[in-house]
């Protein structure tokens, strides 16, 4: 075990994957010699050579198209999109190509070895274009998996599992935690199973669900709520697609209440999917409406970032409202 931050954890996972399998290749803008704008790919080119870790021209659609073909050929590409805000030029490749590759060919061809890494989320004074949380778009794309770690331990274990998983995985890294989140991480190889949520804390009055950097927000709100005598069950969803509906529903059937927190705009965000499934499965157990605490339905603002964010205070207030319904 060693204390490391999330960037180091990501880097460790990449090193292990590249050591283990020479078909693992890392590509993206500035990922080469420089090691990426966040340094997540530091030293990979130096260690594994330019053929296995290389800069690409600035064309996200090209990067994902290239990586999809590379995966189909039998390699294991790990493509980086510099910011999730810049993944949209590749949206067509992802939805129409990557995600449908195996299905449309009757299983003859597959790009399942592909992993796409991308930093996302706000809280770093990034304004419109360095803050977005686009996970809900990808949740509506059958054929891919969407994974979001919330600490260094998860980051390493999930990234290794994603790279080895035989499905295209979008691995979204909450960049606010890159250096902020530090924790003990095993130095060796390990995997965390994809598709599993994690119960962080048991509780009886309300279930709180979040993912990525927002997990610490609901934890903070829970502390405030506990002071008011409200017992919160806290779930880190970890995977957005497929997501662990069973664990969330089981929890809500016990607590009778659910709050979901995400940074993305509220309308048609992923909280809506969770709500819909849970109200279906736990209808008779629900004691109050399922509650969302989300970003506003605006572009991500720069000067008003603090006001925009679904922070612990908004979450705390919503817990109180939900419990007092």
């Amino acid at each position: 075990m060693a204390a490391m931050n999330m960037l180091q954890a990501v880097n460790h996972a990449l090193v292990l994957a590249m050591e283990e399998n020479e078909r693992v290749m890392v590509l993206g803008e500035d990922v080469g010699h420089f090691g990426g704008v966040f340094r997540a790919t530091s030293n990979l080119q130096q260690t594994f050579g330019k053929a296995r870790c290389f800069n690409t021209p600035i064309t996200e659609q090209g990067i994902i198209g290239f990586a999809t073909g590379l995966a189909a050929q039998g390699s294991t590409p790990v493509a980086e999109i510099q910011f999730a805000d810049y993944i949209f030029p590749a949206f067509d490749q992802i939805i129409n190509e990557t995600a449908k590759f195996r299905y449309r060919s009757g299983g003859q061809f597959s790009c399942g070895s592909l992993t796409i890494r991308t930093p996302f989320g706000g809280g770093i004074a990034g304004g419109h274009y360095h803050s977005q949380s686009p996970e809900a778009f990808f949740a509506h794309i059958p054929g891919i998996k969407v994974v979001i770690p919330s600490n260094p331990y998860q980051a390493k274990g999930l990234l290794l599992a994603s790279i080895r998983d035989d499905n295209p995985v979008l691995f979204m890294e909450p960049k606010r935690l890159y250096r902020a989140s530090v924790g003990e991480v095993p130095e060796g190889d390990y995997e965390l199973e994809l598709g599993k949520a994690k119960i962080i804390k048991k509780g009886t009055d309300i279930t709180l669900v979040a993912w990525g950097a927002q997990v610490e927000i609901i934890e903070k709100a829970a502390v405030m709520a506990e002071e008011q005598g409200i017992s919160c069950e806290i779930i880190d969803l970890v995977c957005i697609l497929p997501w662990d509906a069973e664990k969330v529903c089981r929890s809500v059937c016990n607590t009778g209440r659910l709050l979901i927190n995400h940074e993305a705009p509220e309308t048609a965000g992923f909280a809506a999917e969770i709500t819909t499934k849970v109200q279906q499965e736990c209808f008779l157990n629900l004691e109050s409406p399922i509650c969302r605490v989300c970003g506003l339905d605006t572009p991500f603002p720069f000067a008003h970032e603090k006001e925009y964010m679904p922070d612990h205070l908004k979450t705390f207030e919503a817990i109180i409202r939900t419990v007092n319904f």
Partner: protein
Amino acid sequence: MKNRNHVSKIGSSHIFKIIENALTDIPMFSLLQENGCLHAEVSDCEINKNTAAKILQTMHYIRILDERMVAAQRQGRISFYLACTGEEAAIIGSAAALLPQDMIMSQYREQGALAYRGFSTQEFMDQLFSNQRELNKGRQMPIHYGSKALNFMTISSPLGTQIPQASGYAYGQKMAGEPAVTICYFGEGAASEGDFHGGLNMAAVLNCPVIFFCRNNGYAISTPSEEQFAGDGIASRGIGYGVKTIRVDGNDALAVYVATLKAREIALQKQSPVLIEAMTYRLAAHSTSDDPSSYRPKEEESLWKHRDPIVRFSNWMKQKGWLDETAIANFTEHTKEQVLAALKEAENVAISGIDEIIEDVYDTPPWHLKQQLSDLKTHIAKYPKHYPRTSGRL
């Protein structure tokens, strides 16, 4: 870290001059005259009799298949078809220059390349009728062929997407040390997509052994090429990317064959991309959903009918003394029967069972897909008459 100077190779000039349109004259390479005679300057050419015969035979095969299936669509037996009439030389001539280990990534009008590789008539029919024997399990519209065994990537409809994929595929071949290249076909219309730009540029920078083969057939559905681009075609774009480029007469099977042979050699030996632009004409309608008479005059079509690549290549074969007319006649006769028989067989094969609806979305179906399938099966069982194609086999 080394000092670099990104302007060191660029000269300078102190007289103002603007680079005008079509600065670079890129003539198209052709070997056969329209009558099938070799051009005077040309002495010999690198093709053996068997290959030439197979090219000709495949061209005939595809012409028959196309005609029959356009008719089958009119009869309502299949929902959609798309012919390559007039472009057989470009497609088949290039496919003939490849080896079986080379990956083919096509747009949708390259059934000739697939036939050349050995896709059987029955396999064509199974795809066109989307039955359960179809290699892609009937999941896509007719003409979206694919065959892992033949290294022919399953076709997808979105234009241009296969271009950066081909670059990546070729990069993988290189990394794996395979003595193989990837060929990527597309139309001059698809070359307007952003994916074309990303794909060619990446291939050039990352030295991918890929042949980009553009069929410039003058039209993209109803849009004539002068409303598609203002340059002189697609070849001139190669210069900008630093990609080695060839323009070829796409109705001259021999020239296409020779050009692709050289392109393959360069791609493999120099591990670098090559762009080929084949100048041809889409004699067919865009697809069975299209009627070109509203956007181009019949006389224009006739002009190109006279440039029929099959006639031209046959004439050359004849002059070579390589044409076996009886064999061709027999082959044509036999193919027609075979196509009809395979068609009849394919249309009577059931579509895949309903379990297949959730397979291959992922390597194994996650919980929500399993749930959806089980609900669906319960539902079908309740209304079997309404879902006659799958209800018998729940």
